[in-house]
């Protein structure tokens, strides 16, 4: 963080400038979601009014946020739980399998390494969207259709690439001298990974966790065909149930979408500090 220390003995003016730019950034990035939020507080009729109103005219319909949990179209509380379970366990699974692979490929040479790394990135190229027919058949054969486990496995398999590659690049950035020193002390590879390396690559892990979690959270194509019971479906599929042939319950679509953002932000808030950790913070210990 010396970067900041030396260059940024920032003057008052600079700091205020940054705060203004920061404010602009916040506004730009939140505009669509502000619109969504306002939409979720309107009545169904008002959302479709011409010309549109910027703010709800008939009073803020906070009741939408109460009634959306109990709608005839889809069981939203169950959908939320399903989304959480699938995303959390798929993310854990990704970390579990990606971390050792990333560490080993960053540290050692072995025959087939390039093939392995390329195979990993191929999974990113194949989107579940074009593979649903095969995924359905496969999960059917394993008797896993309509289960969370199926979606945990699918999400983990198709979101492995980023985690492996980004952690690989971070592990590769950790000086080998650190490893070697530990190995001289008699530590095994696993211990070197857990106690020496992991703390040094936190920013990479954090990015990988958010990436994986968000991808799982919003996955749609495979969930649509694999999960047929309404209660098991994630929010991404549940949202489509509000779309009727002639009319759509936009207030719920918007409300559920807003609520769906919250857990990701909470997750981010919990691990954001680690993003600043990394090499600088870790090596002091």
């Amino acid at each position, binding site marked *: 963080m010396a970067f900041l220390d030396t260059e940024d003995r920032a003057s008052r003016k600079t700091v205020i400038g940054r705060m203004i730019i920061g404010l602009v950034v916040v506004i730009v990035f939140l505009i669509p979601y502000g619109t969504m939020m306002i939409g979720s507080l309107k009545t169904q009729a008002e959302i*479709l009014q011409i010309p549109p109103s910027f703010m709800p005219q008939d009073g803020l319909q906070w009741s939408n946020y109460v009634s959306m949990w109990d709608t005839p179209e889809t069981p939203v509380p169950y959908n939320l739980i399903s989304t959480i379970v699938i995303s959390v366990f798929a993310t854990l699974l990704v970390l579990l399998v990606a971390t050792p692979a990333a560490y080993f490929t960053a540290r050692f040479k072995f025959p087939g390494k390039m093939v392995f790394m390329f195979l990993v990135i191929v999974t990113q190229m194949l989107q579940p969207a074009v593979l649903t027919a095969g995924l359905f058949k496969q999960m059917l054969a394993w008797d896993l259709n309509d289960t969370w486990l199926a979606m945990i496995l699918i999400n983990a398999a198709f979101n492995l690439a980023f985690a492996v590659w980004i952690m690989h690049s971070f592990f590769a950035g950790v000086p080998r001298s650190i490893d070697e020193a530990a190995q001289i002390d008699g530590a095994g590879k696993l211990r070197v990974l857990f106690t020496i390396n992991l703390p040094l690559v936190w920013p990479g892990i954090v990015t990988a966790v958010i990436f994986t979690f968000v991808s799982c959270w919003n996955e749609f194509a495979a969930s649509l065909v694999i999960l047929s019971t309404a209660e098991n479906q994630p929010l991404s599929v549940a949202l489509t149930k509000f*779309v009727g*042939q*002639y009319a759509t319950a936009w207030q719920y679509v918007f409300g559920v979408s807003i609520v769906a953002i919250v857990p990701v932000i909470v997750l981010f808030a919990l691990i954001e500090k680690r993003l600043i950790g990394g090499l600088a913070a870790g090596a002091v210990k």
Partner: protein
Amino acid sequence: MKRTKRSAVLALSAAAALLLTSCGFSGGNDSGGSAESEGAQTTLEMLVPTYSTGTKALWEGVIDDFETEHPNIKVNLEVQSWENIENVLKTKLQGNQAPDIYNGGAFAEFAAEDLLAPASDVASAETLADFQTAFADAEKYQDTQYGLPLIASARALFYNKDLMEEAGVKNVPTTWDQLHDASKAISDKTKADGYGMPLGSEEAQGESLIWFAGNGGNFGDAQKIAVNTPANLEAAEFMKKMIDDGVTQNDPGATQRTPMLNTFIQGKLGFAYALPQTVGQIKKENPDLNYGIAAVATKTGSPATLGVADRLMSFKNDGSKSAAVKEFFDYFFSADVYTDWVSTEGFLPTTKSGSEKLAGDETLKPFLDLLPNAVFYPTTNPAWNATDGAFKSLMGEIATGKSAQEVLDAIQAKADAAK
């Protein structure tokens, strides 16, 4: 460091425990094997689309009552949006997991591949006899009836009385030319658009057939899809004239029906073809709208409209569940259950008993009156589904520079390729 490690181990073992014990809210108990062990229990898989936001609840009500009467039959309901349902169905078909009961728009392609149970296997003679003949005939593929007509709907001309008055239009248009001139007057003299023409992917096929029918045209029959006929071409050219003369809303080629109807509901559109559900929507969203409902404007003024019917069908799979499906269909099409369902969704009934019960319904009356002159999609032709898709993706091009002839030929080519 130790703490991190321990909590990681804890989290993982919790994960493992959860995955082993539970695979979802209903995981494990609906797989084929366990059903048999409970004796005579039959489980029916049912896949339906959402007509309205109340569709799921409506079916759940029907199923609950049915299961109470038939404790040995369980119905698993899966509801999907129209946009996704065919994708889901196709995946299931490929995995040999066809639903026992399916509600859809096309059936002939399934019948052509011998995937459907004949109607006589899944409904009693009394139930079948209760369908109005015209509808039942539209469910036949090679002389065997497969589908059970579920709903019917007809299109009518909705007109905004206030805008007509403001533009000085006295009479409700009954011919193409009158509609053109009235729309032009509204476009020119008011802030609103004259006529709403939705040729986007949602409704291009419906809008087209309304106009084609107005010139005595149609999309062909069970044997042959015929799109680029002279009658159709003349109608398409008149549609293009409406667009080129600027009497429609902007960008009709990319306009979807739902938002277009919404502009009508909000009083910003002179004329639009709409359906029974629109009446309910106006009541809910803009009850002050001063509007009327009239017959479709045709070339000469002789009556014609587009009729739409959707159906229930049963994929036969191994045939072991047809008795249970029969119980369900007979229950559902009994006069009280069916009438309640169809009127809640706001559609026209397809059964004789249903029509009698709903004859006095004021909302439905203008549409029921139009039904005898309705032209239907050629749903009995296996190539209809592909034709439908071609209309959705191509018809809008008459608004973006291509000639009517070119566009109809392109649609015809896609239909021919689907045989």
